[in-house]
């Protein structure tokens, strides 16, 4: 057991080391693409002021280092990145790192809840569909998954607000906490949970649909394997066969899929956080794009790439924990 833990730590450290060049590459590409877009922060600031003289624009650019040639800006950016300095957001007048860390928590909470929701529903409904294959529960689940898959996320979000907040008044329509209520302890947890239900459901819906279909197909495929016949010949109940033998084998592709879809969820959270006014990275990204807050945008993209890399490593670790055939090398 100790040896396994040691192998695991070594594996994670090596993978982290290997991903450093990837992260630097991503940072470079991000920088280039962001600077390809016309307009900079000075344009937006000046535009908002209504009018600005060329002198004022030049002063703004000089102050933020926007007047330097691109390669100088790039070197400055990369140099700072290596010391984890992501620069200063001139729109929020706060360091980017501080902004990101403040918004990371809510987004992680939202994403984790959505993924857990999607996985548990995916397993539950997928297994149910596979065990009732070609009977009505299977058809119902498959059609439901198709509809969930095809429904636009923002539309679903708006419709849920209309139904559950406006008409029924069951759930809060936006934000992460009731403003000014000043709850503490369990009351606060409950309050956040109430705010979390709708955005997490909407965000997880698409992934759920995916997981249900995947789980169903995987269960059916594994169910045909020889070792399942062996299990049946041992006199096990169909229940024990499904959960002890088929499910554990069938869950492997799902782990891969979740790992791949975390980046899609990260993208989806931009929409969801905007619709539900969730104070997370997605909403920050939305603002950063429309306000040409390049430092913030670059910081966000960099943080996202770190999250994706970390998720990939996590996926591999989980995979290796479930499947003894894959060595931790």
């Amino acid at each position, binding site marked *: 057991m100790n040896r396994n833990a040691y192998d695991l730590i070594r594996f994670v450290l090596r993978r982290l080391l290997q991903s450093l060049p990837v992260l630097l590459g991503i940072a470079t590409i991000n920088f280039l693409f962001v600077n390809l877009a016309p307009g900079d922060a000075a344009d937006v600031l000046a535009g908002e002021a209504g009018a600005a003289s060329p002198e004022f624009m030049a002063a703004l650019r000089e102050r933020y280092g926007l007047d330097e040639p691109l390669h100088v800006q790039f070197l400055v950016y990369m140099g700072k990145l290596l010391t984890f300095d992501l620069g200063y957001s001139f729109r929020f007048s706060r360091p980017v790192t501080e902004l990101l860390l403040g918004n990371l928590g809510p987004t992680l909470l939202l994403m984790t809840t959505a993924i857990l929701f999607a996985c548990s529903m995916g397993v539950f409904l997928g297994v149910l569909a596979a065990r009732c294959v070609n009977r009505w529960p299977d058809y119902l689940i498959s059609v439901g998954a198709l509809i969930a898959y095809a429904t636009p996320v923002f539309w679903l979000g708006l419709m849920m607000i209309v139904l559950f907040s406006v008409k029924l008044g069951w759930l809060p329509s936006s934000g992460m906490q009731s403003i000014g209520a000043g709850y503490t302890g369990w009351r606060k947890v409950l309050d956040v949970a109430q705010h979390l239900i709708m955005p997490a459901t909407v965000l997880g819906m698409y992934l759920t649909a995916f997981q249900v279909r995947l789980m169903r197909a995987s269960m059916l495929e594994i169910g045909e394997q020889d070792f399942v016949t062996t299990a049946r010949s041992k*006199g096990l109940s169909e229940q024990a066969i499904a959960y002890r*033998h088929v499910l554990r084998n069938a869950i492997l592709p799902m782990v891969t899929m979740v790992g791949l879809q975390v980046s899609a969820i990260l993208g989806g959270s931009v929409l969801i956080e905007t619709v539900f006014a969730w104070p997370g990275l997605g909403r920050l990204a939305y603002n950063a794009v429309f306000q040409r807050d390049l430092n913030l945008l670059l910081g966000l993209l960099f943080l996202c790439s770190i999250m994706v890399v970390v998720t990939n490593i996590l996926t591999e670790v989980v995979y290796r924990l479930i499947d003894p*055939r894959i060595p931790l090398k």
Partner: protein
Amino acid sequence: MNPVLSISDLRARLRGPDPHAFVIDGLSLQVGRGEVVALVGESGSGKTMTAYSVLRLLPSAIQLVGGEILLGGQDVVGMEARQLREVRGTLASIIFQEPMTSLNPLMTIERQIAEMLLTHGKTTRQTAPARVIELLELVRMPDARTRARQYPHSLSGGLRQRAMIALALACEPQILIADEPTTALDVTIQQQVMKLLLDLRDQLGMAILLITHDLGVVAEVADRVAVMYAGRIVEEGPVVDLLEAPRHPYTAGLLACLPDVAEAGGRLVEIPGLPPKPGSIREGCRFAPRCPSATDLCTRVSPETRIEAGRAIACHHPRMPA
């Protein structure tokens, strides 16, 4: 003496539009206590499906439509699910052709065998590990203690088949159904595994229904042989009689196909043609299109099974005993 396994007039067909697509068509077979009976035939003759049907393990595409399978006196065909689960593993158990895929890759050998014991209440959680090691030692698994804690992927094919046999014998069944247990193994390992099965038969007194297409194996291990063709048993008898003096032209053909080392370099003999698809021959003997001695009668009337001097044979024109 009551047979351990008694199959009579068993019929199974492919689900689908053709009601005559029989995979097993009126098969009868008995296996006595401690007896080794070999069921021989080409691929597609229905021998594996016969093996599967004894424990009602047929794939969903195939449906039992008639007949009786008595296992220790109980009819398996009409049995309800709960009773069937009790029978599986305790009265009869089965080992498969592919040891590489017939064990769950995510469970240790110990857990897979212990699961069988615990399901049938043969041991407790505390005593299970010791019993598993006993069983692994019984099948001569080298280094049983270490192997028990390993996953199937770290075992070779031969060792996996040993683990499978230990699993199958865990609840001391009266009959072991072995579906081509050595086909996927090396020749040297084949010998070891077959010898192990025979030793275990002597030690535990169980019967063995051996499904195989290897007549060499049959000659060495079986007491009785049943030759199957297109879902039916065409000839059955004691192993020496049947192999030395085959009476059905199909049996004779199979024996003629065995390569002979003395005639190395000569052309390999074959039975011309292919076995019929289920349901493609409705009238007459199914072997008639490939049979050297077929007559007009053979294509019109299906031969009845006759019993002569301890041999059962279904042929209009059997070869004369020498």
